[in-house]
């Protein structure tokens, strides 16, 4: 004990202590900080494979270095999340120009999408793909998600996320077929007409709440068929054409002479 007490007053002691503290902080940070899923998986090989895929499939529009050109956005800094969203929903690669890239069956498999995402993420830092925990609907509060969805999303996507029309042929798509990861990525990156809802606006926990709310909507309506849940158009069509048609038919039948 005497020896330690002596050394405690050594003039190098503060430096040694500071170094130890820094090491400890670094170790704790490394152990505790959430690492994005793709960060661990993205190796040099993945980036190289992604670059090859990019040159073959994407460089025609986005440029050989993903720097973009007139009418085609630069992908530098869009992050892995944007690539995963656009490619896993089949929006990219685009097959034809139009008001907006429609969702279609994806062209690449999961591994290829991860490679492309790794390549684009290697160009510049950007939003990464959320972890499975971050998008787990079971961890969200659907009631709070509904309040947030009503304020931030419902004006375009409709009150239960069935989508709606925008201007000049653009539209907010239905969210019924979107995976929780895709919903999270869309909020984070703001694809096409959609604004960005970054983590300072809607926190990761709140994003999870919104996902929980949307997952609940996938169970459908407790009242029976919801006629597409697109609002008064389909319901009005049903009432005016089918409902009133039946009433008119019944009135004609009652009044007609029988043979």
């Amino acid at each position, binding site marked *: 004990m005497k020896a330690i007490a002596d050394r405690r007053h050594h003039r190098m002691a503060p430096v040694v202590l500071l170094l130890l503290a820094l090491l400890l902080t670094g170790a704790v940070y490394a152990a505790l900080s959430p690492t994005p899923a793709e960060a661990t998986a993205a190796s040099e090989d993945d980036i190289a494979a992604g670059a090859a895929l990019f040159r073959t499939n994407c460089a025609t529009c986005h440029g050989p270095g993903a720097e973009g050109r007139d009418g085609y956005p630069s992908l530098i800094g869009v992050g892995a999340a944007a690539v995963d969203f656009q490619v896993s929903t089949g929006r990219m690669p685009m097959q034809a120009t139009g008001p907006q890239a429609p969702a279609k069956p994806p062209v690449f498999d999961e591994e290829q999408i991860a490679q492309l995402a790794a390549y684009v993420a290697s160009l510049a830092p950007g939003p990464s793909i959320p972890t499975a925990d971050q998008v787990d609907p079971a961890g969200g509060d659907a009631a709070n998600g509904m309040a947030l969805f009503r304020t*931030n999303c419902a*004006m375009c996507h409709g009150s239960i996320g069935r989508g709606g029309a925008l201007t000049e042929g653009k539209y907010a798509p239905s969210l019924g077929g979107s995976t929780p990861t895709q919903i999270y990525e869309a909020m984070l990156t*703001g694809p096409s007409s959609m*604004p960005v809802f970054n983590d300072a*606006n809607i926190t990761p926990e709140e994003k999870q709440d919104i996902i929980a709310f949307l997952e609940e909507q996938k*169970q459908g309506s407790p009242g029976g068929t919801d006629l597409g849940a697109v609002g008064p158009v389909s319901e009005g069509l049903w009432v005016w054409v089918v409902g009133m048609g039946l009433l008119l038919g019944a009135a004609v039948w009652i009044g007609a002479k029988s043979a």
Partner: protein
Amino acid sequence: MSTEHSQSTELTAAATHRDVAGPLPERFENPGLEPHRPRLTDEDPGAARRATRQVAALFGVSVLGTIGVIVAHVAFPPGDSVASMRTSNLLLGAALFLSLIGIGTAAVHWAKTLMSDHEVVEARHPQKSSPEVREGAIAVLREGAEDSGIARRGVLKGAMISALALFPLGLAVPLIGEVGGDWNVGAFRHTMWKRGTRLTRDPSGTPIKAEDVTVGSAFHVIPDGLREQEHWIEEKAKAVVLMVRLDPADLKSEQGEGWSYDGIVAFSKICTHVGCPVALYEQQTHHLLCPCHQSTFDIADGARVVFGPASRPLPQLPITVDDEGYLVAQSDFHEPIGPSYWERLK
């Protein structure tokens, strides 16, 4: 029959060639009733038996439907899940439909095929009362007026007319008084926003730092302290704001010098057409679309109307940051928010 037939042919011919054959006849002959045509079920006992079976079957459908309602009620309770509620509602509804439509269609089919269908003529009695009754009524009225002496007693006549004429005011004044509250357009000229009010997130009410609003972001904004207001929903309906950040290079114009902050612009969310919340923001074109009547505003150009029935831009909220870096309002809106007709009363 044959004379009737030829007559009607003549009439048709006259109607078709009116210009040539001269005017229509003065009076149409009463064509009378069509001859009674017996139905198949009146003449063919087989058809009658078939119709009887059909009616019985329809009543049977109703019976099955009623049994179905009870079975659905017992066997498929609503339960706790959405799917079980849907099954319960669907089965109850379908069975109830069958039990009612069975009774209805059976009754109509029965009446049309099996009940007697002989035409019955029931002459309408004249609506006008007989002369004696009419004279009697007038005599009674005249007698009453003479008895009251209304012609001689001018004071009573005036008092009665005054009372009757004033009575509607008791109903009209409170009703018009209620309307009066909405005529106070000053309420629409001012909102909760004033110098230094922080912009906060809707619905959480947390303040927003300028650095949090990245390019392409859209924030739905309410004023700080909204929920402490006595009539906070009314205040919210006037004060809601949509805030977005553009690349400062894209910002073509704004409604006042220095009203934006480093590409962050804030506009009233109440449409200047009829007051719907305008919130469909298209990030790439910087267009803001109203869902009610498709008015479109260009956020990059001072919310200029680019399409639709709105007649003036959305009022811009002048913003800046306070010394802690939070976004605050410079002042209230500089013009009334909402539908343009309030502007006329300025």
